[in-house]
Each structure stands twice: as C-alpha cells, then as structure tokens.
C-alpha cells in the first residue's frame, strides 16, 4: 500500500515540489491589533463584508407574494362574484318562480281534493306532498323557464310531438323513475271526460246520501 502511494508521489513529484515552494502567506501587520480590538469591544459578530450585488432574485419572492394576494383577492372576494354570477341569479329566479307555482298548485290541489273521492284524495295528498317536497328539493324540475327545452309528456306518448330530438327522448327514458334534473320538463295532464263524469256521479251520490242521512237525523230529533 505504501509503495502505491510512494509511486503516486513520484508521479506528482514536480507538482509537489511546486506546491511546497509556493510563497507563504502571512497575516497583515495589524492582525493582532484588530483581533484584540474586536475582543475588547466584544465585536464577535460576522465581520465579513458582503458586497451588495444587485439581483432580480431579491425581488422575485416579494413580487410573487403580492401577485398571489391580488389574484386570491379577486378570486375569493364574495360580493364581486355574486354580482357577476349569472347562474346564481338564474337559480334565485327559479326558486322564486317555483315558490309561486307551489302556492298556486297547492290551492288547485285543495280544490281538486274537495271534488275527488277519499281513495283518490289520499293519493293526491301524498302526491301533492311529494310534489311540494320535490319542488323544495329540486326547484327547477317543474320550472317553466325554459319552454324551448321543455317536453310535453302527453304529446310525446301520443306521438304528436314530432319536434322533439332524440336526446330529449333519451332523457325521458333515463329519468323515468326519478323526477328529472332537467329544468324544462313539464308534465301537463288533461283529465279524461268519462272518468270525470264517473267521479262526479260518485260525488253526487255521496252528497245525496249525506242529505238523506241529515234529514233522517232531523226526523229522529
């Protein structure tokens, strides 16, 4: 091992000689004086004087911070967003509209309940309740705002609506079980005349029976 290193030293002999002959650097004359002054003044901090270099890198970090704060301000500032968001405004309109529709439809249903027999009453009650719930949960499902996109189910079933596109038909098929998210879906029901007459006859007979019962009660009294 020693031989290898000796051989290496021989290889660099000229270089080693030059390195050994390099002039010895000496400390400046005032080295000790300066050192003692520093110790006496307790100046133990960094004495290294760093030359101030101008560099763009110094400005990078603060400018990046400023830029990000400005961007975040515009992104998350709430009032500016609310004023500009058309979608939110539309949903508000839809909510208002659906509330109005709810009240009118509830009145209509109450009227219907008075004229419909008890079995159908229950169904209509539950359906009206469901309808109210659905409207509150998904107010856009019965909204008539987008008539151009709406589908009339009766026309579709009867085949008279020829203007509907295939995509709309697909939506009908897909959303058959659940109330649709589609905001222009309107179900317009036209009651059958025969069933109406049947229901009226039933109601009339009930009314007659009630009148007879009332008259019997009066007689008994």
């Amino acid at each position: 091992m020693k031989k290898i290193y000796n051989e290496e030293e021989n290889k660099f002999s000229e270089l080693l000689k030059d390195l050994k002959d390099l002039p010895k650097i000496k400390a400046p004359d005032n080295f000790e004086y300066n050192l003692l002054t520093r110790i006496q003044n307790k100046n133990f901090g960094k004495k290294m004087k760093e030359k101030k270099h101008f560099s763009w890198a110094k400005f990078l970090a603060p400018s990046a911070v400023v830029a990000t704060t400005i961007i975040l301000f515009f992104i998350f500032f709430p009032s500016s967003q609310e004023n500009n968001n058309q979608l939110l405004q539309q949903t508000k309109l839809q909510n208002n509209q659906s509330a109005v529709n709810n009240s009118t439809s509830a009145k209509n249903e109450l009227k219907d309940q008075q004229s419909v027999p008890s079995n159908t009453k229950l169904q209509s009650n539950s359906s009206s309740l469901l309808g109210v719930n659905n409207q509150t949960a998904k107010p856009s499902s019965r909204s008539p705002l987008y008539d151009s996109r709406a589908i009339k189910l009766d026309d579709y079933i009867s085949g008279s609506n020829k203007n509907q596109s295939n995509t709309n038909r697909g939506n009908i098929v897909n959303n058959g079980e659940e109330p649709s998210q589609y905001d222009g879906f309107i179900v317009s029901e036209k009651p059958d005349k025969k069933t109406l007459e049947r229901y009226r006859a039933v109601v009339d007979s009930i009314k007659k029976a009630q009148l007879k019962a009332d008259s019997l009660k009066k007689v008994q009294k």
Partner: protein
Amino acid sequence: MNKLLTEFSDEELIKEYQDHNTPEAYDILVKRYKDPLMNFVYRFVGDRDICTDVVQDTMIKFYLNKDSYRSFAKFSTWIYTIAGNLAKNELKRRRRRVIFSIDNSDDERSPQIEDKMFLAPDKAADGEMRNEIIQKALLKVKPVYREVVILRDIQDLSYEEISEITGLAIGTVKSRINRGRAQLQKLLKHIYRE
C-alpha cells in the same frame, strides 16, 4: 513568566489558558498560528481579505470556545478544523451569491486559468507567474480534494493529522489527496508535460 510561556507547547499553552485564563497564553497561540492559518485559508479561498476575516473569526472562536478543546487532541488539528469549517462556510456563501446574482461582474473572484495559448513559455517558467497559475488551478479543484491537498502538500501535515482535522478515515484522506493531485496535474498539464 513570559519567557517560560513561549517555551510551552501548544497543548500546555491552551491548558494554561483554560485553567488560569492567562491572556499571554492566548496571545502566544495566536502568534504561532496566524500565519499557517492565513496560508491554509488563502490557498483554499483565494482571496486575501476574506482569508484575513476567516482567520480572525477562527481566533475569536478559539477565544470564546476555549473550553470545548479537549486535551486528548492536538491543538493544531483543533484550530485547523475551526478554520477549515469557517473557510468552507465562506465558500458556500460565495457560491450562493454567485448563483443568485444575475449580473455578476466580479471577475476577480471567479478563478480562471489562463489558456496556454496565451501564455508564452518564458512567462510560464517565471516563478511568480507560475505560482499564480498554480493557485488559480488549485481553486479549480473540488473543495473536498483541495482541502486535503493543501493540508498535505502545502501545510505539510501528516495523514493522521489531516484525518483528525477532516474527520475522515486515513484511507479516504490518501485517496482524496491522490485525486486532488491528479486533478491539479490535469489542470496544469501545460506546465507539467508527462
């Protein structure tokens, strides 16, 4: 008393300074080591002003942390370790400054070796010029190799002492010295024709 102190070994002086806080012991040690440390740090950093500051800081550290010296180590290795660490830190700081400053116009600090095409042979032979070229080449060698080459070939320290100063195994020290020399020789190939 003073005469006696000058005859003390380094280890005796530091012991005297540690035990009795004798300022003369400190002064003597500063006088003994200021020049070797200046030479070592100058060859490592390549700037006389920075080198003076580094050695001053080394002496301040010695003054403040005298109790951290343990008597089983040699005083020379302890003080060289401090100076070496400060010099390395200074180098790192300078390198960072060079990286971050876009308009770095300080050509004096970036070591450059003259191209042999522009160096006349009679000039290369000239001692002063030769020393300057060697110093610049030394600054081009990787710091890990440069340190051990300086300690071994310029400061004339033993492998054991270098091992203690750098905290490396002796084998690693030897191989690093060898690599450092090879790098230096390669950089100075126009001077040393094989």
